[in-house]
């Protein structure tokens, strides 16, 4: 029988916080009820975790207990007629693609890595480059099994009128343990993508590009060079794509790329190297600009090629900062954020810009809302990094925007509540035995 065993160095993807947890790693659904009972017995708080790709602390529960769901990774059923796929929550999107692609189907929504669990993707109500067309992944959930600490498994779907489904989708694992999920998937005719890359010289050029493309392309996203100064500020590469109408339905196996074997020294990613990287990205993109047929794997998952890439940021780890601001102020707020980053000289290795569509997100705490989202990452240099993010907070808050909890490890309770005004409705559905570091911070709940 699976038990909780102490582990002293559980980290999230950002690797900033290293904490002690009691960890259980069940392999079978029949082990879960006892674990929920035992985990809560000692008065500790519980949290289910997956492949730990959340950047900050919403997947950490320091000094509490976690149920690592990664070994509950079995597909349960798939019906090509109804396009409904049911699987245990710990299955990775990578494994789902291996099941779907050869049969001519694809994930309806995918984030930028396929090494996340299905349960985690629902708990964070992830979005992808097709948000303007498909909304969040939560919109595609038809049923899910939620286990609460008081016992039993609840089967919930979009027809639920108690609010528990809406709290669970995007609910950061706080409403209980998601044991299994059923999603609707989409048909594809080919595993190939038709991709078009368009360089743009200024941020102002991004908005008309995305407005013009979102109607005709399933997937749109832009990368920007946020270190470029002067005339080049706001330059970037816009990419738009759709699933090709013809081509083989073959699974694109991850080419065994390099793996980062250890934490790089802190100086490895500095202003100069990041600037050089960004320059290279831009030039490379400009060289390859135009239309091309591309495999889906590098298009959706460019960073999955480098195993453990977060270790590039060294021992102190890094922060990811992802905001969304409403359409009316998107241009000004985005410009202000890029200026603040550039002025602080805190290079962001990756800066990604995307316009969300107006499909409502199903979760009470779902991040996507109409507007423009900007994702930045910053090496953890301590106080100066936190200060920069505080400045960005002020811009986002003034714009009426909010931050993405899946990426966050430092947001204040006030900032969270301003962005998610219905957080108190949500809090009513939180399982009393469940918590996370993130939740304690933003709800100012006592520690375990």
């Amino acid at each position: 029988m699976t038990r909780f065993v102490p582990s002293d160095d559980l980290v999230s993807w950002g690797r900033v916080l290293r904490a002690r947890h009691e960890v259980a790693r069940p392999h079978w659904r029949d082990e879960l009820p006892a674990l929920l009972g035992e985990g809560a017995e000692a008065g500790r708080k519980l949290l289910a975790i997956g492949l730990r790709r959340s950047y900050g602390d919403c997947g950490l529960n320091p000094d509490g207990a976690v149920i690592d769901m990664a070994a509950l990774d079995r597909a349960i059923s798939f019906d090509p007629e109804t396009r409904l796929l049911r699987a245990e929550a710990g299955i990775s999107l990578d494994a789902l693609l291996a099941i779907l692609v050869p049969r001519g189907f694809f994930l309806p929504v995918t984030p930028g890595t396929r090494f996340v669990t299905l349960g985690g993707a629902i708990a964070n109500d992830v979005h992808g480059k097709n948000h303007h067309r498909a909304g969040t992944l939560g919109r595609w959930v038809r049923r899910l099994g939620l286990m609460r600490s008081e016992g039993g498994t609840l089967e919930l779907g979009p027809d639920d009128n108690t609010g528990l489904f809406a709290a669970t989708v995007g609910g950061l694992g706080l409403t209980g343990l998601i044991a299994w999920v059923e999603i609707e998937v989409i048909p594809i005719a080919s595993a190939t993508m038709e991709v078009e890359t368009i360089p743009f010289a200024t941020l102002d050029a991004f908005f008309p590009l995305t407005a013009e493309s979102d109607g005709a392309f399933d997937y749109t996203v832009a990368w920007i060079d946020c270190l470029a100064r002067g005339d080049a500020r706001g330059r970037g590469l816009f990419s738009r794509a759709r699933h090709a109408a013809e081509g083989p339905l073959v699974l694109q196996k991850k080419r065994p790329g390099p793996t980062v074997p250890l934490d790089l020294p802190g100086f490895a990613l500095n202003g100069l190297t990041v600037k050089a990287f960004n320059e290279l990205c831009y030039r490379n993109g400009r060289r390859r600009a135009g239309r091309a047929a591309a495999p889906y794997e590098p298009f959706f998952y460019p960073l999955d090629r480098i195993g453990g890439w977060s270790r590039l940021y060294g021992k102190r780890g890094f922060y990811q900062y992802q905001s969304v601001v409403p359409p009316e102020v998107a241009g000004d707020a985005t410009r202000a954020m890029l200026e603040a980053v550039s002025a602080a000289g805190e290079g962001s290795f990756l800066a990604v810009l995307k316009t969300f569509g107006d499909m409502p997100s199903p979760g009470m705490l779902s991040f996507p809302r109409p507007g423009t989202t900007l994702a930045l990452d910053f090496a953890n240099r301590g106080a100066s990094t936190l200060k920069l993010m505080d400045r960005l907070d002020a811009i986002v808050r003034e714009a009426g925007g909010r931050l993405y909890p899946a990426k966050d490890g430092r947001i204040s309770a006030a900032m969270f509540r301003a962005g998610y005004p219905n957080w108190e409705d949500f809090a009513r559905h939180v399982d009393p035995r469940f918590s996370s570091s993130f939740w304690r911070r933003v709800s100012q709940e006592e520690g375990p």
Partner: protein
Amino acid sequence: MKIIILGATSAIAEATARLYAGEGAELLLVARQPERLAAIAADLKLRGAARVETATRDLADTDGVADAFAGFVATLGGVDHVLLAYGVLGDQKSIEHDPAAAQTSLTVNFTSAAAWALVAAEALERQGRGSLVVLGSVAGDRGRRANFIYGAAKAGLATLVEGIAHRFATSGPRAVIVKPGPVITPMTEAFANRKGSMWSMPDAVASIVRRAADSGGPVIYAPRFWRWIMLVIRSLPSALFNRLEI
């Protein structure tokens, strides 16, 4: 390709079964718990297995093994590979002072496993082809205070499989004992902080187990570097070995 897996709910067995499923194999899974077998079977079908059958049986029970094994082969309509993957680690400290518990450990890990290995060997020899892959352990290479009862059973099993391989040398089929180092599975969950280069994931061991059915052997370590570690450990003089906390 037709595969029989004895102890199919073990983490290494399940990871290996996924590799076979990806090749479109036909599998027969044997283990004690029918619900768990059903969960694995549904998953393997979606991962590409052409066919998955299950048989519920406590493999420690050796009554009528020959008939039972013949039944497995008949269900699949033949057999190419047999993977024997079950075992119990047990807590050495509590079983070494309890002769009955020690005997149970030896019965499950050696006596019953040997019975299944021998009937599988018979079947493979009769048809003149096929592979028998048995999971052993580095614990069988030298008795250590930490796990010598489990280790003794695995040592016996290794010798048995080496002998079967020797018997097969001129007749066509193959027999291989795969000896994993410590693996992060439910069997080892009592160990705190299972991390570092000594610990492997079931997937990594599974790919070695899968290849072992096709080539190499009769003794294969998983991961391979354990061959050299165990060579050193076996060579240590007792005076030194006795002082090591390993």
